């Protein structure tokens, strides 16, 4: 509510400044033309043009066309006999239009670019956060990142990054890496969520300015758990195979021993028959 009121007040103030600059330029033009002071008044039109380009770039071209027409109309109306002034006024008209079109085209492109960045940050499937590496405060956080850590976006804005990135040594290592590494960096870090659970993220930083680092982050805890589960399953399977193999080998050994025993027994009987045929007879 307070923010809304402030922005409304700001807009009214902007409109007031532009209106004052326009009225000032027009009144001074009328005064100058009626008092034969021709040198300075056209300069006064630069101010409202720049103000409109800055505050309302989308409507700047239309506005500057209107104000330039107003300027040239006043000259034609109040000094139509002065041909030199008419020529100069036409040149000024062209200059106003050129300045306005050039500046507003830059301003519009700038606005579009800001929107494009906003679209990416707001709709990205990765978490995005921007922080000040020297001060440590979180400057920008997208909804995805806040959600991944179970925070509201507003709760994280302005807070110290140590609240979520608790490992100081890891942070310092990361800052060092940022300073020294020239190639794109991709590293794993641990972040603490609102409920105290720790998640593993892979982040890639981008140094936007010397006091702003923009990071793209993806929660890989789930992937790590899946990887861990797969690894465990594979280990279990390997263990089972090993146990089964050992069991089979043991059975194999036992069978071999049994066969050997049988053979030994057979050979004992055969030998006995050969050496003592009388005893065999007796037995029969």
């Amino acid at each position, binding site marked *: 509510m307070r923010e809304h009121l402030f922005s409304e007040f700001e807009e009214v103030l902007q409109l007031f400044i532009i209106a004052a600059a326009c009225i000032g330029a027009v009144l001074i033009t009328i005064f100058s033309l009626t008092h034969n002071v021709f040198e300075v008044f056209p300069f006064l039109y630069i101010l409202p043009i720049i103000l409109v380009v800055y505050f309302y770039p989308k409507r700047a071209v239309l506005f500057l066309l209107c104000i330039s027409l107003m300027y040239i109309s006043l000259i034609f109306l109040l000094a139509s006999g002065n041909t030199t002034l008419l020529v100069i006024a036409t040149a000024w008209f062209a200059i106003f239009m050129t300045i306005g079109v050039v500046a507003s085209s830059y301003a519009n492109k700038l606005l579009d670019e800001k929107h494009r960045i906003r679209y*990416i940050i707001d709709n*990205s499937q*990765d978490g995005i956060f921007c922080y000040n590496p020297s001060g440590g405060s979180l400057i920008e956080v997208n909804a995805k990142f806040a959600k991944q850590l179970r925070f509201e976006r507003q709760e994280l804005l302005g807070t110290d990054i140590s609240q979520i990135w608790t490992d100081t040594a890891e942070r310092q290592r990361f800052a060092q890496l940022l300073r020294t590494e020239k190639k794109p960096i991709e590293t794993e870090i641990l972040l603490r969520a609102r409920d105290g659970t720790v998640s593993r993220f892979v982040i890639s930083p981008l140094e936007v300015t010397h006091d702003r680092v923009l990071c793209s982050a993806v929660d890989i805890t789930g992937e790590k758990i*899946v990887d861990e589960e797969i690894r465990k399953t594979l280990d279990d399977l390997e263990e089972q195979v090993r146990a089964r193999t050992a069991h089979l080998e043991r059975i194999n050994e036992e069978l071999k021993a049994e066969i050997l025993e049988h053979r030994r027994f057979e050979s004992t009987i055969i030998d006995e028959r050969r050496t003592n045929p009388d005893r065999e007879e007796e037995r029969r």
Partner: protein
Amino acid sequence: MTVATKTSAKHQISWAVAILATVVLAVYSTIYSLTHGIHEVFPFLYFLPIIIFVYQYPGRGVLFSLGLSTIFLSLVYYYSASNTTLIAVSTAWFVIFVTIGVVTSSFAESLKAEERKYRGIFENSQAGIFTFDLQSQEIREINTKFARMLSYEREDLLNRNLSAILFDADGKSAFVRTVAELSRTGDVELFFHTRDNAVRQFLISASLSQDTTVICSAIDITERKLPSRSY
């Protein structure tokens, strides 16, 4: 020297020549006008080199406009020191030139910085990002991450139709229709072809920018989906 470097060098030289020519023209006209008592029009000629210079070298625009304005004022002082009205008007012109230089170069610098930021976010993202034209459905930009997720090179996918990578035609139509109607989508699951004809599942969110470009962000959820399917 590569063809691109040669073209860029030629381009730079053409701009430098254009700037130099407009500066020489402005200075020559100033001297001529001041020595012939024509005081009205010559200052207008200084706008051209300032605007061209700022367009080409925004980082040095302020210095250039300050330098050129100083030359202008010096010439007026040198040739018409006795004409106080002309000196007063020229001082106003000096302020205007510097203001125009500062304003336009600050816009141009900010624009370059934003473009760098956009490019940085685009290339640095852990998610795949691509943009396509809503009408033609042709891919306009794609980051290396997303191209790699689909086993392609970035250049292979630029200007290709979405159908080249989107597996499910019905899913694609529904997705494009949602973007057109609502200007954005929530999280949508879509299947994509990779270069080696494997099918992978992605979570996509898209939003329509101010022109007809749709900006999409994507993450591969195939592995995430596998355990839940197997249970």
